[in-house]
């Protein structure tokens, strides 16, 4: 294997700047998508545990729809197909008019996709508490909304901290799929450096190290959080 090592390429301009901007995009896309995934996923997950047949069915359809189409295909659907389905003016706006079309599309797509996975975790968390607590709440005269707010959810979220952590790490890794519609995040920049300089080994190592650092920090942080919020005597459960 003959290869001209040149680690210096990573600190030379403009490549250093490419990497930092790529890393920033990775973080921004992941966090934006996570906010959407967490809030929507919670709503869908709760809907799947309610007594209403209609709500349950809608939520189930959502989860099955978004889970069974590859993320990359969803990315293309939102970016290429969705604007075609809108009236012409609105379609043009989505394509070019709205601020940062690639970023916005990627974050929304990633968020909607991950929401289906978060929903499954939330549902598993609520179901693992058991019918007894729900009945006890209702028997005390709480409304169903109050049962969720004061009885079920506080326990459910504490139980599902570990699986939610891994969902967050998944969203963070999946943010690389955004490169297919032109968001220049970490992986895309590493690839671009390889194409410009032929120093693929150095470029990909830099990207790998960045991903590993963030993963490790999140895991350490969440291990601390898990310790603080875990419920004594309860083994945490996650949906698969």
């Amino acid at each position, binding site marked *: 294997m003959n290869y001209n090592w040149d680690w210096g390429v990573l600190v030379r301009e403009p490549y250093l700047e490419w990497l930092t901007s790529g890393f920033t995009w990775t973080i921004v896309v992941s966090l934006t998508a996570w906010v959407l995934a967490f809030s929507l996923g919670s709503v869908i997950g709760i809907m799947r545990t309610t007594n209403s047949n209609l709500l349950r069915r809608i939520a189930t359809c959502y989860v099955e729809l978004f889970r069974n189409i590859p993320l990359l295909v969803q990315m293309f659907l939102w970016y290429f197909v969705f604007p075609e389905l809108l009236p012409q003016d609105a379609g043009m706006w989505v394509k070019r008019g709205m601020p940062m079309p690639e970023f916005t599309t990627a974050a929304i797509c990633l968020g909607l996709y991950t929401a289906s996975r978060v929903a499954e975790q939330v549902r598993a968390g609520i179901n693992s508490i058991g019918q007894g607590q729900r009945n006890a709440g209702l028997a005390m005269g709480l409304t169903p909304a109050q049962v969720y707010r004061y009885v079920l959810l506080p326990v459910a979220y504490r139980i599902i901290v570990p699986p939610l952590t891994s969902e967050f790490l998944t969203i963070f890794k999946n943010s690389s799929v955004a490169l297919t519609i032109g968001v220049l995040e970490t992986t895309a920049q590493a690839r671009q450096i390889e194409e410009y300089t032929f120093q693929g080994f150095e470029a990909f190592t830099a990207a790998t190290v960045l991903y*590993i650092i963030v993963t490790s920090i999140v895991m350490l942080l969440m291990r601390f959080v898990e310790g603080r919020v875990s419920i004594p005597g309860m083994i945490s459960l996650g949906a698969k």
Partner: protein
Amino acid sequence: MFNNFDGKVVLDNLHFLIEGMQTTLLLTVVAIIGGLLLGTLLALARLSPFKTLSFVAGTYVNFFRSMPLILVIFWFYFLVPHILGRPVGGFYSVLVAFVLFEAAYYCEIMRAGIQSVRQGQIYAGQALGLTYQQNMRYVVLPQAFRNMIPILMTQAIILFQDTSLVYVVGIKDFLVSADLVANRENRILEMFTTVAIVYFVICLSGSLFIRRLQEKFNL
């Protein structure tokens, strides 16, 4: 909108699309087999009493699990020809990437499966006078495997979806074939909708089948 939807373009290029789907399936099957074999070895290594062995396996698994699949694909697409010193074609590089990447996930499934067999079962086997191999062969592994089946199959569906990521290096799988047709015929709407429906039908049938299996055999 859908009023100028032209389904004919899909039928005209059906042969081309089927060829793409064959590549996708080939990639999926080889990655499953390779990933399972390597993953089982890794799981045994992780559970082995030799500290070095389990440390190496653990590091391998954590390393691959903290990287996005696209980055792994890029890595091997770049690395494999360099190591071999000659071009081998993208398909084989990507195959290596998938096997090594999936092995990390299969290892974790295997490990959880083996650990899901209760300690009492192992003691019972020992009390009956079974040797370590007999205990593994007749008591632990059959139960472990039974517990793992649904998760292994779910992972296969995830893998089938993930193979679409070979798009980034232009291997002609199902999605890339459809993309080529879409751009050639200027029929983006029709082609991508078809791709989504095909993936959806296959994956949904798969997961419904798994659920049926779970209910029937009480897994």
